């Protein structure tokens, strides 16, 4: 029998994987990929809670997360393309012009 805990643990694990990506990757593209993983991990959690508590609010949140992800991609990719055209690299370490 699969319980809510199963899903939540899965969600946590996926979230951790996403975090590994976020911390570890230096490539902007990969960073965005990792962000998507984070969002999806959260989505699973929401959907699972929605199911096991019989409440649709969780699904609603998941919908809005999907919408946010879509807009994030549109803007993020645009910025990335601009950056790549100017600098020829997507390495985060090359974006340090604002260091204090």
């Amino acid at each position, binding site marked *: 029998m699969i319980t809510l805990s199963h899903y939540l643990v899965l969600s946590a694990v996926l979230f*951790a994987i996403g975090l590994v990506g976020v911390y570890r990757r230096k490539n902007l593209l990969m960073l965005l990929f990792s962000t*998507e993983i984070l969002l999806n991990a959260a989505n699973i959690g929401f959907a699972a809670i929605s199911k096991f508590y019989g*409440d649709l609010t969780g699904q609603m949140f998941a919908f809005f997360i999907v919408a946010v992800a879509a*807009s994030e991609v549109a803007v993020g990719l645009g910025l990335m393309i*601009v950056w790549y055209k100017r600098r020829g690299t997507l*390495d985060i370490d090359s974006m340090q012009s604002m260091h204090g």
Partner: protein
Amino acid sequence: MFEAIAFYTFSAITIVMFWITVTSKNALYAMSALAAGMIMISGFFFLLDADFLGVVQIIVYTGAVMALYAFGMMFFDTTRDVKERVRAPKLVFLLSGMTALVLVIALVAPILGDHIEALYPMKEGIENPQAVGIVLFTKYLVPFEVAAVMLLVAMIAGIVLAGKKMDESLTLKVEDEFTQKGAQ
């Protein structure tokens, strides 16, 4: 039983795919693995009776978001391996591991409790898309519209950012045009 089989299979595939995404040196691998993982996640949604969400996940994430990523990747050199200099890799795993541990503890421990009330309970006999529609267009109408506006804004931003002349400075460009017009 089916649910268990499906759950474990999907879990295994998803975790492996996402792990590939996170660790792969090749952007194309990462992208493909991520897309595969997204489809698997939609599988979870189907398991969780959130049919509509599952389909939206496929259409939006796999069909649109990942395709957009792929399209964006064509501007970069995707087949070349990504060169990265990872500092303090142990810290990365420590942090993520700790977070995962804490999350698991937080989620598995009976913190959530039973005193959660279903605000918008799922009713018997109403199919998922219909129920979603009802809630989405009554209680969540304003967030829904806001999300729509946000998407529109994001679209315009994307168009402006990725426009043809963006490798030059927009403001300088405008000034140039002014000077040209002045010259005429």
